């Protein structure tokens, strides 16, 4: 799993590539919590994530819960179809705000 963090229009965009599984989710957690700690709005780009397991989803959940406490927003953007299927099946699309594109997440419409 690779990751990158950049700032766009005042929001932190965290992107992951590859598999966010049991082996890599501690790193994903560290990156996500680090981003949320900055008290900025966070968008997580999952377009290059081919597989996410429950430990990876738990990292997203924890970051989402932390952002709620911090009063900042947390959204997922461009979720890869395989990962989206996992999220939808578990009805996590009712928990996370999911934007179909980065532009939409940044507030510029889809």
């Amino acid at each position, binding site marked *: 799993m690779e990751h990158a963090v950049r700032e766009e229009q005042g929001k932190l965009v965290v992107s992951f590539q590859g598999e966010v599984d049991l082996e890599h989710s501690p790193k994903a957690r560290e990156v996500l919590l680090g981003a949320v700690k900055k008290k900025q709005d966070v968008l997580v780009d999952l377009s290059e994530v081919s597989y996410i397991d429950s*430990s990876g989803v738990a*990292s997203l*959940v*924890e*970051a989402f*819960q932390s952002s709620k406490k911090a009063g900042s927003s947390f959204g997922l953007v461009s979720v890869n179809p395989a990962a989206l299927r996992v999220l939808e*099946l*578990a*009805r996590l699309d009712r*928990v996370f705000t999911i934007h179909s594109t980065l532009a939409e997440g940044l507030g510029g419409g889809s």
Partner: protein
Amino acid sequence: MASFHGLEQRPDVTAQIQRARALTEVRVPTEVRASSDTPKLDVDGTHSLEDAFELLAEMTQDFASSMDLDATLEKALASVAGHLDAEAGSLWLLDLEAEQISCRACVGPNPIVGMTLGMTQGIVGRSVMENACQSVFDVSKDPAFSSKADDESGMVTRSLLCAPMSFSGRKIGAIELINKKSDDGHFAQKDVHPLQVLASSAALAIANNRMAASLVDAQRVRRELELAAEIQRNLLPRARPDPFPIQGMNIPARTVSGDFFDILPVDGGLAFCLGDVSGKGINAALLMAKTASLYRCLAKTVSRPGDLLRQLNDEICETATRGMFVTMSAGVYDPRTGLVCLANAGHEPAVCHAEGGFTTFDAEAPPLGIVPEGDFPETELDMRGGSLYIFSDGLTEAADESGDQLGREGLERLVCDFEGVALAERVSAIVESVSMLDLRDDLTLLAVSDEHARAERGGGA
């Protein structure tokens, strides 16, 4: 002392000497650092090399045969100090986390075992950090010298010889000899070899000892995990023989499981559930134990699965940590009517096999432990003499040699293969077939069958 020729006639000792020579040869390039005013050292090492071989043979034997590392280190230190005619000697171990070195063994008039120095403090600290031998003729002229040990022991250090200990490139510590009693009070170049030899075998013995200690630790953790697994197994309901209409099976991917299921009689029928905690390992197992216990407690008084999941969700949300959550299907089956009332919190869709066809029931709410005060809609299904299968994703994600996952279609094929087989036998046959594949996660299957109850109700085939 045995002569070199005498030793060569004994093959075991010869091999040992060859190993020692290799060890010593590796060590020879190690930098010997000396104070600027140290007199030129005697570089004729032949005699000390022979001594070193004998010392090594003795020390290797001691290190290999003794389980008491401290006693062996002290004995080896005493023999090398005696051999090199030093007044005192000490062995120091590095603690990188605490950034300290501490005295683990010593010989001499006043013991300083347990004394600590900063890891870069003193000539011994320099030897450890630079991984280089140190030979100092007059310590009063070396600014690196720390008098802390002298203050504690009451000794006066004049000259000093120090060799670092390392293993596989990792710094372990150093051995220090103090005050040569003969030869004008100076340690010579030929004294370096025996000390290096001791340092090498002591480093090996210490590394072995640490490895053995971590093995003991790993065994203890393993025993504790096995105990935890036993307690977990007892949280699952006991198997009831056919024709009992609900059967379940759980196979953990590791020692402990993050999956669970339960079956218990309640007013209005039989309550059942299957849960899967996010992640794996002991943290998932602990949340599994908590959720399973809460379920059992709540199911006795809360009859509707949707209400039960709502209460369970609120309880788990209160103490949730690290984003962990539980996907769970819970239901109540009434054998008198053949109806199942089902609620699904983010879990894999349940599959109903009735009258030759399959119907799936998707989750209508997110998993437990994420958002409190949620709503968990219920679905009512008429079993019509069929069977309902609820399973964890460990079953559908089991993969064959080429990595192809079983999937829901694979499960449906297995259900058809074992159609007509009594339920308990069918569940174990399906689980056994799936177990032949590569399991990446805990595997749990629960099945509710209306076949027997329908026959008793007198329903048509």
